[in-house]
């Protein structure tokens, strides 16, 4: 029998943007088990809900994550609105959808860049981030923030987008779409990338479902779950098809993210064409009394916000189940049987966002 050794991976590792620790049990060069440890960036944001008014907590909810920030605030607001029975104006719903998709695109481009970097493909990394910058510029000019938008509030949104700006965004997206075609062709067709990814870290459809994988990790294995299909915000009025790949390997997960960029562009275009005129917010009076679970689709998968209030300004409980947290059990399964040299690539394919997972 081969001798087993344990190699620590992280919390500080060149491919990891955030700290997660994995103890890799190796036999020769093959990983036979992985033991994850989290707890390096816990901030106690859920507890803070007892100390802040529910309207101000939106800004804290947004700061759970630095990349998928907007959708956190959107989901939290949806919870409060459902408890208090607030009807959000249509225009606000469409604006929320537009910003959600922008944030998904910038997150996916960030990931594609980091992923290319982890394989040593520096020029693709630079190009992905160059394109991401255009999206961040649009976000900054419409919301005021590059990655922390702070534009969602209970009862609507804080800023409106002028029709001229919407046209400008539409034109900008056309240009970005052309450049994205060039970029994603490299990810999907390049032989060196294929050699590195195809067949590595395979997760079967049953495993993905049983272990509770969400987002691109699940869709890469053929599980057709996309929370946007449930029609929250304005998604119910938009035609789109979730991207599902059946390979289950690293290449499939990469392909899902690359193709979702175009779905996002399509959704934004539809939103801009259909957006109605009208107010963007309603006045909120009183305080939430009750509880609600809201689910929405983040770049990394399904996020669940649970909010409980007792009729006072401060909420009683706020619980967030983030996509990375649910994707850790699939990650452990993915790692079993891969070579040590493939571990960084496999870990990155679930798009780990530890700041989210620990709150």
């Amino acid at each position, binding site marked *: 029998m081969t001798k087993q050794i344990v190699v620590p991976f992280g919390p500080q590792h060149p491919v990891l943007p955030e700290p997660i620790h994995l103890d890799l049990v190796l036999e020769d060069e093959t990983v036979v088990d992985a033991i994850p440890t989290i707890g390096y960036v816990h901030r106690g944001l859920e507890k803070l809900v007892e100390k802040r008014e529910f309207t101000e907590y939106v800004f804290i909810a947004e700061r759970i994550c630095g990349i998928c920030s907007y959708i956190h605030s959107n989901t939290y607001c949806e919870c409060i609105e459902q408890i208090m029975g607030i009807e959000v104006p249509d225009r606000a719903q469409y604006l929320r959808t537009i910003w959600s998709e922008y944030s998904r695109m910038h997150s996916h481009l960030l990931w594609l860049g980091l992923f290319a970097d982890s394989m040593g493909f520096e020029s693709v990394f630079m190009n992905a981030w160059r394109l991401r910058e255009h999206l961040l510029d649009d976000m900054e000019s419409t919301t005021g923030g590059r990655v922390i938008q*702070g534009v969602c509030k209970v009862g609507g949104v804080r800023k409106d987008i002028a029709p001229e700006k919407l046209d400008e965004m539409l034109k900008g997206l056309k240009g970005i779409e052309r450049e994205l075609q060039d970029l994603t062709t490299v990810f999907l067709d390049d032989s060196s990338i294929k050699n590195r990814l195809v067949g590595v870290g395979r997760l079967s459809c049953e495993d993905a479902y049983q272990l509770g994988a969400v987002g691109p990790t699940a869709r890469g294995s053929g599980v057709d779950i996309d929370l946007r299909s449930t029609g929250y915000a304005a998604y119910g009025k938009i035609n789109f098809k979730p991207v599902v790949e059946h390979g289950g390997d690293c290449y499939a997960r990469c392909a899902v993210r690359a193709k979702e960029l175009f779905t996002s562009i399509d959704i934004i275009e539809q939103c801009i064409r259909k957006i109605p005129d009208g107010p963007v917010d309603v006045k909120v009076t009183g305080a939430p009394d009750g509880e609600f679970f809201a689910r929405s689709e983040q770049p990394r998968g399904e996020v669940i916000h649970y909010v409980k209030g007792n009729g006072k300004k401060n909420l009683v409980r706020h619980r967030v189940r983030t996509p990375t947290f649910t994707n850790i059990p699939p990650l452990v399964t993915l790692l079993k049987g891969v070579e040590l040299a493939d571990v960084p690539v496999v870990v990155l394919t679930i798009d780990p966002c530890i700041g989210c997972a620990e709150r």
Partner: protein
Amino acid sequence: MALFQMTKTVIKSLFSRPATLMYPVNVAKKTANTRGHVKIDPAKCITCKMCQRKCPTQAIEVDNKERTWQIDQMRCVVCSICVETCPTKCLTMDNQYRPAMTARGGIEKFTVAGPKKKEPAPADGAKPKETKE
């Protein structure tokens, strides 16, 4: 196929201007909406404490006896809620980021005019006074 795609991108990058800016020699691009940092017009502040109550990070401290308005720029997350709630619009959002610091600090204290009922805003009451830790 893919090699050709990448070559196209590389050639395009070769003949186009750099995508990056020589910051800080060239000014970073900012839009009118950009949230940079909070500024106060001390002559208009009535020390109503609305900003202090609304601040999610408790960066603002208002003392209505001393008539001071204090912000900890290191705590401030630039969410702009104070600017929105200010009844006299004495708070504004500047679209330039505040300069980087090399030591702890960032507390800015201003003597403000105070409530209008008691006395009209004195012309010399608008003296910004900065204190450091």
